[in-house]
């Protein structure tokens, strides 16, 4: 191995980012070396030998297109006898078939058709959602086109589509994100900057998207690298790309013609993508353009995803490339390469257990309704409510929406995955969930409920569909900003630490009264470098809320501890036995990754904040617990303990509803809402809290 390769390998093993020069130098490496390096990065991002795939269908609503890209064999100009716009009957058939075949969604794309208004697309999306299918639809060129046609901004177009049910956006139309190439290849299509800006806007509105690259035509290797670097940069800002898919241009039946890039070029490009895009989690092979044999081999070159079973695919087929793979074929290719096949959905979440048993696809939750934060200064506007979806056939899972809530939610519960569903299950009146845009990025969805005329909010820290975001990476600032903006004054944080103190057993409740902060390097203030935020943390939790928790829960049905010191760690790893011994010496009772910096940020916003913990396991070293791979907590909790924990989890909503009336009624005689008073008096901060952030 020569020294350049050794240097690159050392960098990659350390998880360091490659510079532009290093990225360019990758093209000089030989194929097997690139594959090896890419495999290492894949192994670090995805330690399990799993390859994911999705079952879906590509539906093209029209092939009539005014863009006339030179590499495209699919489009027809307006007026062409071969032009079509999908009719409802055909669409219905395709959607029903997709559901029958177990498809979880639809990849929806089409030509830029000047005769279709925005309402057509909204209706299309709603129609598909009526079948319970995820809509992975449109692309930046389409969004730009819709905006131009309708006279709206991109954000407005995106909001309307999101309200209609758009779930995510595919990364098409990227080709090569360098205008020199775009001008010659597709002069009537959006520029590279526009493509990136539309994706940024989508990400900020809470939409996940993929990114693609079509290479092997007019571009140079430098331009391919440029493309990758642009994606990487945008991902740093927004984190909204779920996957990257490169593929080679297929020349047949296109204006451009020429030769298709061979497997060598494809595999090199794929491997280099893996090495450069250190911040994009998933890398997908293109069996549609390369065929099953090369796609399988590509799994050894850094890719971890096999794409879609493509119940239908028309665009590449127009170029005469008609590879087809069934789901069982895909699974066979994955398995014979030595990997485990795992079905996923369009958000790259798993929908299948490792034993190959299908999780029943849950009916999709109502799509997030969208409201942008208004300009700082305007306050108290309630979200506009969308109308009920019109559906043709199929199920729709949306509550009939009542009038807007009579008052703002004064209390928010920040809790675990899908917490709002527990309240839905109890029949609490529900206004819907929104993702709110904040200066710190999009918040998690905030769900509004009404309890006998009083509103409260519920927010899941870690994601709605499964444990998506580890504690260390939850966007606390965005969540708290969103809650405060909605009118929240008090936060009840529900969390699940481990116990250092043996008397606090799994299934017990604890209302901690102090914190030992052992976290590292997280953004724990809204005011970095501004000389603000010297807030006393004595007591660190709202005393008024705590009093109510103690009074009510000490006579409750679960064992309850009135005080406790919560040791906060960063994670995502669990602690070592030596660390737990240290924490015990320091007086810690519980250990977890959730409350910090959430509590400190909440106090900077002058929110009352109290935590209600339920113990899920003993911390390391407290009890003898041998490692068990593959099970929850890897054996740290026994099945008996897990059962106790589940009892508490099942009682979560009921407990909260029991606590709510008193918590809401408490008059805020605590110091919490005056923690920043000194800065207001000094003039460092304005009266309107929304002006506090730079």
């Amino acid at each position: 191995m020569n020294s350049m390769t050794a240097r690159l390998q050392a960098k990659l093993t350390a998880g360091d980012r490659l510079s532009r020069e290093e990225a360019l130098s990758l093209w000089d490496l030989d194929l097997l070396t690139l594959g090896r390096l890419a495999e290492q990065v894949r192994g670090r991002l995805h330690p399990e030998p799993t390859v994911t795939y999705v079952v879906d269908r590509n539906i093209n609503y029209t092939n009539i297109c005014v863009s006339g890209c030179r590499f495209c064999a699919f489009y027809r100009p307006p007026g062409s006898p071969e032009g079509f716009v999908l009719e409802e009957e055909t669409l219905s058939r395709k959607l029903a078939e997709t559901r029958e075949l177990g498809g979880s969604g639809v990849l929806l794309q089409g030509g830029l058709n000047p005769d279709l208004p925005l309402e057509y697309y909204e209706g299309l999306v709603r129609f598909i959602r009526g079948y319970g299918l995820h809509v992975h639809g449109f692309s930046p060129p389409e969004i730009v086109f819709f905006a131009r046609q309708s006279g709206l901004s991109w954000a407005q177009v995106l909001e309307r589509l999101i309200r209609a049910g758009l779930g995510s956006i595919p990364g098409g139309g990227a080709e090569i994100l360098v205008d020199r190439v775009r001008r010659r290849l597709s002069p009537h299509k959006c520029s590279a900057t526009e493509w990136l800006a539309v994706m940024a806007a989508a990400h900020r509105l809470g939409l996940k998207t993929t990114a693609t690259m079509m290479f092997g035509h007019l571009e140079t290797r430098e331009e391919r690298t440029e493309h990758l670097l642009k994606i990487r940069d945008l991902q740093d800002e927004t984190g909204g790309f779920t996957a990257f898919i490169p593929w080679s241009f297929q020349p047949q039946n296109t204006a451009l013609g020429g030769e298709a890039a061979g497997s060598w070029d494809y595999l090199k490009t794929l491997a280099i993508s893996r090495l450069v895009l250190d911040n994009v989690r998933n890398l997908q092979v293109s069996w549609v353009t390369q065929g099953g044999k090369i796609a399988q081999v590509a799994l050894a070159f850094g890719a971890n995803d096999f794409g879609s079973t493509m119940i239908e695919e028309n665009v590449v087929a127009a170029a005469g490339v008609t590879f087809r793979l069934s789901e069982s074929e895909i699974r066979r290719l994955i398995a014979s390469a030595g990997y485990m096949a795992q079905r996923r959905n369009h958000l790259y979440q798993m929908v299948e257990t490792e034993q190959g048993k299908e999780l029943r696809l849950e009916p999709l939750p109502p799509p997030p309704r969208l409201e942008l934060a208004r300009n700082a200064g305007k306050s108290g506007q309630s979200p506009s409510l969308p109308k009920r979806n019109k559906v043709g056939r199929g199920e729709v899972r949306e509550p009939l929406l009542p009038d807007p809530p009579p008052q703002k939610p004064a209390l928010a519960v920040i809790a675990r995955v899908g917490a709002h569903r527990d309240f839905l299950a109890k029949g609490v009146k529900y206004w819907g969930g929104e993702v709110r845009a904040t200066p710190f990025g999009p918040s998690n969805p905030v769900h509004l409920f009404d309890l006998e005329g009083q509103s409260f909010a519920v927010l899941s820290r870690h994601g709605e569909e499964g444990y998506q975001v580890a504690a260390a990476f939850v966007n606390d600032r965005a969540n708290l900003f969103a809650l405060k903006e909605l009118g929240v004054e008090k936060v009840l944080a529900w969390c699940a630490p481990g116990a250092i103190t043996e008397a606090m057993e799994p299934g017990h409740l604890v209302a901690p009264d102090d914190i030992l902060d052992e976290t590292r390097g997280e953004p724990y203030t809204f005011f970095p470098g501004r000389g603000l935020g010297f807030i006393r943390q004595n007591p660190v939790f709202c005393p008024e809320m705590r009093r109510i928790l103690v009074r009510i829960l000490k006579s409750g049905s679960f064992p309850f501890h009135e005080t406790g010191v919560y040791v906060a760690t960063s994670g995502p790893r669990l602690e070592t036995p030596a660390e737990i011994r240290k924490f015990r010496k320091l007086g810690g009772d519980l250990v977890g990754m959730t409350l910090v910096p959430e509590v400190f940020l909440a106090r900077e916003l002058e929110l009352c904040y109290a935590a209600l913990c339920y113990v899920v396991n003993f911390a390391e070293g407290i009890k003898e617990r041998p490692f068990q791979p593959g099970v929850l907590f890897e054996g740290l909790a026994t099945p008996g303990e897990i059962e106790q924990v589940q009892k508490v989890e099942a009682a979560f909503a009921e407990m909260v509803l029991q606590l709510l009336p008193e918590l809401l009624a408490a008059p805020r005689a605590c110091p919490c809402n005056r923690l920043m008073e000194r800065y207001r008096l000094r003039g460092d901060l304005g009266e309107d809290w929304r002006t506090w952030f730079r």
Partner: protein
Amino acid sequence: MPPFFQDPRLIPLYDKVRAQERLNFEDGITLYRSRDLLGVGYLANLVRERLHGRRAYFIYNQHINYSNVCVNGCQFCAFGKSANDPAAYTMSLSEILDKVKERLDEPISEIHIVGGLHPDLPFSYYLDMLQTIRALRPEVHLQAFTAVEIAHLADLAGLSVADTLQALKEAGLGSLPGGGAEVFSPRIRSSLCPKKLSPEGWLGVAQTAHRLGLKTNATMLYGHLETVEERVEHLIRLREAQDETGGFVTFIPLAFHPKNTRLPDLPETTGFDDLKNLAVARLMLDNFPHIKAFWIMIGPKLAQLSLAFGADDIDGTVIEEKITHMAGAQTPTGLTRAQLLHLIQEAGCEPVERDTLYNIIGS
């Protein structure tokens, strides 16, 4: 410092390969079973580059399949038909000659002739075939009749294999193609092709040819019912025969295709498997000069990739440019020379056009 293998069991093999030590049966199994595709490829590529640098050979040839009538009825075959089958055909000598005449103005170096075991064609048919083609194109090398056909011809002629080969040689035979080897395991032979010439018979014909100064190729059909052990055994038997008589030139692993065979429910071979077979062949057959990837079977994309996994030769019909413009873009039956060169060059290899005996024609 050894390069990074994901599979640590490849590391002792790496030492062996660098020391040019022969690999044994267990080594072959390790290679086949390893999930470390890139590691296996790396090893094979070491050998490939030692022998051939970055050269990638190809030949401009023409194929003639004179008849698909066959008495063997092998289960993995989609080509052979019984004599009264409506899809059966047998070319007359004039038809064969017409075929040759069609492409007289192309720079063809080799005519590759194979067919089924026809029960009725006399030995003279074959002799005449060779003689008349040679008369028409004296400069072209005739690679004709697999060991299986040769044994059949010996029966027809009532001659020994050696004498049969001698007669054919005098009529213009240049070398033997490698087909008919399938898998040497008795288990496979008895279940899939019991009527076929036995492995001993096949090797016997090949070695007799070698002793008469004729070069031959060898093959293995993989991806049906054979086990990994049977594959390795097959390669070792070929290696041993080569040690004795030294006349094998090229080994071609052939990917089984299920369509229209009597094993239609078997899946197609995977890319992993295709590359593994090439790589393992390169590593086990240390005394075979060349390993060929047959792109018609595994596709041009995979054949291109195989140049990094041990193959140094790419075979498949090459079409001259002037035919291309009549046929449109790439036809299903051939690549143009330009396409083939592009394929090879994109892989960072040096395209070398060769004749049957690997004399360089051009590059």
